[in-house]
C-alpha cells in the first residue's frame, strides 16, 4: 500500500537522482524541477481529461451522446483531436490591436493559474511549497488573473472584448471579497494559514464542511464566479458579448485561455477539497485516491452547475455578491469567532 503513494514515488526518484549526482544539494534543486514538472503535468493532464469529461457530462445532461467517433465508441481520443485542431488553426491577429499586450494576455493568464498548484497539498507530504502563509499567498496569486482578462479585452480593439474585460474586473473584484471572508472562518478554526495544517486539523476533528456549512456555500458560489463558469460566466457570455475577451483570439492563443479555464476549474475543486472536504484524508484507501475522488466529485458539481443553470445578469450578479454573500460571510465570521472563543475557553 505504501508504495502506491506519490510520496513513495518521489522518494524513489530522489534516490535515483542522488545515485547519479551524488550531491545532496544538487539533488534537492533537481527535485524542485521534478516537482514543477509534476505540477505542470497535472494541469495538462487535467485539461485533457476535463475537456473530455466536460463534453461527456454535458452530453449526458443534454440527452446527447457526446463525442463518439474519434477513438472508439466513447470518443476517447477527442481531446487529442481538439488539441491538434487548435494547434493547426491559423493565428489571426486583429487589425489595430495592441500587439504586445494582446499577445501577453493569454500567457499571463496561464501563469497565476499554474502558480497556485505549487501550494496544493496533494497527499501527505506531497506539496511543492508548504509555506506558512499558504492561504494568503494563494488568494494573492489567484487574484492576479483579473489583469490578463482586462489586457486581452483592452488590446483586442473590439467592443465586445472590451465590455467583457470590464465585466471581468467588476466580477472578480466583487467575488474576491466574500471568498476571502468565507475562508477566514476556516483559518480561524485552524489557527494557521498553512495548507497542510488546515488538512491536518480536519483529520483530527471533522471536515470543515460540517463546521462551516455557510462558508462552504459562499465559497462554492464565489469560486464559480471567480472561474467564470455558468451561472456567472458573464465574461465570456457567448449569447451577449460573443466570447468577451477571447473573441479575437484563435488557435493556440485561444487554447491557452482554454487551458487556464480548466486549470482554474481543477484548482477550485482542489481548494474546496482542501479547505472543506478534508483533503487527502479518508479511510482504507491511500490519500492520493481520496484526494482525487473528492476533487473529481467537485469538478462534476461545477460541471453540473454549468449545464443546468441559466446565466445571471451583470447587475444581479454584482448586487448578489455585495448585498447577500459579503454580509453573510461577515456574519459567519463573527459566529465562528464566538464559537472558537467559547471552545478555547472551555478546553
Amino acid at each position, binding site marked *: 500500500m505504501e508504495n502506491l503513494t506519490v510520496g513513495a514515488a518521489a522518494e524513489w526518484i530522489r534516490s535515483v537522482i542522488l545515485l547519479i549526482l551524488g550531491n545532496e544539494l544538487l539533488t534537492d534543486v533537481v527535485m524542485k524541477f521534478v516537482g514543477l514538472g509534476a505540477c505542470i503535468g497535472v494541469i495538462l493532464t487535467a485539461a485533457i481529461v476535463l475537456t473530455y469529461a466536460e463534453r461527456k457530462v454535458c452530453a449526458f*445532461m*443534454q*440527452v*446527447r451522446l457526446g463525442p463518439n467517433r474519434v477513438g472508439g465508441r466513447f470518443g476517447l481520443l477527442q481531446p487529442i483531436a481538439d488539441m491538434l485542431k487548435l494547434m493547426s488553426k491559423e493565428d489571426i491577429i486583429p487589425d489595430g490591436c495592441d500587439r504586445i499586450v494582446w499577445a501577453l494576455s493569454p500567457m499571463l493568464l496561464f501563469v497565476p493559474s499554474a502558480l497556485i498548484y505549487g501550494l496544493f497539498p496533494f497527499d501527505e507530504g506531497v506539496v511543492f511549497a508548504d509555506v506558512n502563509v499558504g492561504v494568503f499567498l494563494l488568494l494573492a496569486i489567484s487574484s492576479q488573473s483579473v489583469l490578463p482578462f482586462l489586457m486581452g479585452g483592452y488590446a483586442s480593439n473590439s*467592443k*465586445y472584448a472590451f*465590455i467583457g474585460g470590464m465585466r471581468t474586473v467588476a466580477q472578480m473584484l466583487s467575488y474576491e471579497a466574500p471568498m476571502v471572508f468565507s475562508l477566514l472562518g476556516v483559518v480561524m478554526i485552524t489557527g494557521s494559514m498553512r495548507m497542510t495544517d488546515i488538512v491536518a486539523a480536519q483529520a483530527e476533528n471533522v471536515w470543515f464542511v460540517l463546521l462551516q456549512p455557510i462558508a462552504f456555500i459562499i465559497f462554492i458560489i464565489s469560486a464559480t464566479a471567480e472561474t467564470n463558469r*455558468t*451561472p456567472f*460566466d*458573464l465574461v465570456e*457570455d*457567448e*449569447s*451577449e*458579448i*460573443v466570447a468577451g475577451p477571447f473573441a479575437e483570439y484563435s488557435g493556440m492563443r485561444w487554447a491557452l485561455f482554454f487551458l487556464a479555464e480548466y486549470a482554474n476549474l481543477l484548482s477550485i475543486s482542489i481548494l474546496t477539497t482542501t479547505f472543506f472536504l478534508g483533503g487527502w484524508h479518508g479511510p482504507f484507501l491511500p490519500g492520493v485516491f481520496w484526494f482525487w475522488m473528492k476533487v473529481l466529485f467537485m469538478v462534476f458539481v461545477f460541471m453540473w452547475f454549468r*449545464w*443546468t*443553470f*441559466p*446565466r*445571471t*445578469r*451583470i*447587475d*444581479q450578479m454584482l448586487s448578489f455578491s455585495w448585498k447577500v454573500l459579503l454580509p453573510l460571510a461577515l456574519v459567519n465570521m463573527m459566529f465562528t469567532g464566538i464559537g472558537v472563543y467559547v471552545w478555547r475557553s472551555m478546553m
Partner: protein
Amino acid sequence: MAGTETYTLNMGPQHPSTHGVLRVQLELDGENILSAKPIMGYLHRGIEKLLESRTYVQGVPYTDRLDYVSSMNNNFGFCRAVEELAGIEVPERAEYIRVIVAELNRIASHLVFIGSLAIDLGASTGMLYTFRDREEILDLFNLVCGARMTFHYIRVGGVNRDVQPEFIEKTYKFLEHVPVFMEEYKKILLGNEIFMSRLKGISKMSKETALSHNMTGPNIRATGIPYDIRKVDGYSVYPRFDFNVVTGKNGDNWDRFNVRYNEIFESAKIVRQALDGLPEGPFMAKVPKVLRPPKGEVFSRTEGTRGELGFYIVSDGSTKPYRVHIRRPSFVNMQGLNDMCRGYLIGDSVAAFSAIDPLMGEVDC
C-alpha cells in the same frame, strides 16, 4: 471628473443570439441601452416579386421559406387567400387536417422559442430538451408528407394527401406525451430562480405601446389583450373547437414566455378535438388544373405562430398573381424592439430579441 460618452455596438448580423441575420444597432452608455435600432434585409430574397412570376400553385412552396419554423401555418395562410380569391370550397376533412398540422406546427415553433430563449439566457440544456421533443412532431410531419422542414403539404383546395391511421395513432401518443415534457421544462426552466429573475419585469410593454406598434401574436397577448385571429376572425373550423386565448398581465418577458408555454397546451387541446372529430370525406376540393382566379383582390389573415399573417393578393385574371404582399408578423413586431430594449442592460437585449421571437426568413421575406 471625466466626461462619459455613449458608444454604438453593432449586434449582428453575425452574432450567436440574433436568430439568424438580424443586426441591431445598440446605443450604449456602459451596459445600459439608450436605443436599439433593428437593421434587417440580410436574408431578403424578394419572395413577393418571385411570387408574381409563379402560378398560384407554384407559389405555395415559397411560403414555406418565409417562417421556416412553422411552414404549415404559412401554407395555410397563402392557400386560404388563394381559395378566397378563386372561390374554392374546401372539404371539411381537409380543413380538419389543416388545423391539426397547423397546430402541431405551432407547438413545434413554440418549442423552438422556449429552446432559443433558454440558450440565449445561457441554459443550453433547456434548448436540447425542447429540440428533442420537437423531433417527435417533425417525425409526425415526416409521416404525413415526407418532409421535415419545408412541408408544402397544405395545397390550394385541400391538402396534398390524406392522413394515415398510423399518423392519427402516433399523434394521440404525442399528445399524451405533451404534459410530460412540459413538466420537465417547468423543472429545468420555469422553476429556476435565475431564469425567473432574468425575465420578470424586463422589457415591459404596456397595452397602449403594444397597440401603437401593431404587435400581434403572443407579444400582444402577453400585455393582456386577447387578440387571437383564430378567435377574432374564427376562420376555418376553429370556432368548432374549445380553446382559450392565453393572455399575460404585465407584458414583460416572463409573460411572453408563459403565454407561449401555455399556448402549447391549448394547441394540444385543439389537435385532440380535431382528431376526435375528424370527418370522413375527400381531402382535396376539385381545383381546376390551371387556376385562373377572377379579377379582383383579397386580404386574408390567419394566426401564424408569431402573430397575424396576412396575404394580400391582386389577381388580373391570369394564371399568375399580379401582386402579392405578405404582412409578416415578425416584421411588424420588430417595431417594438426599441421600446423593449431601451433602459435595460445588454443582457436583457438578448432576452428581448428572443422574446419577440422574430424569424429572419419572415422579417426579410
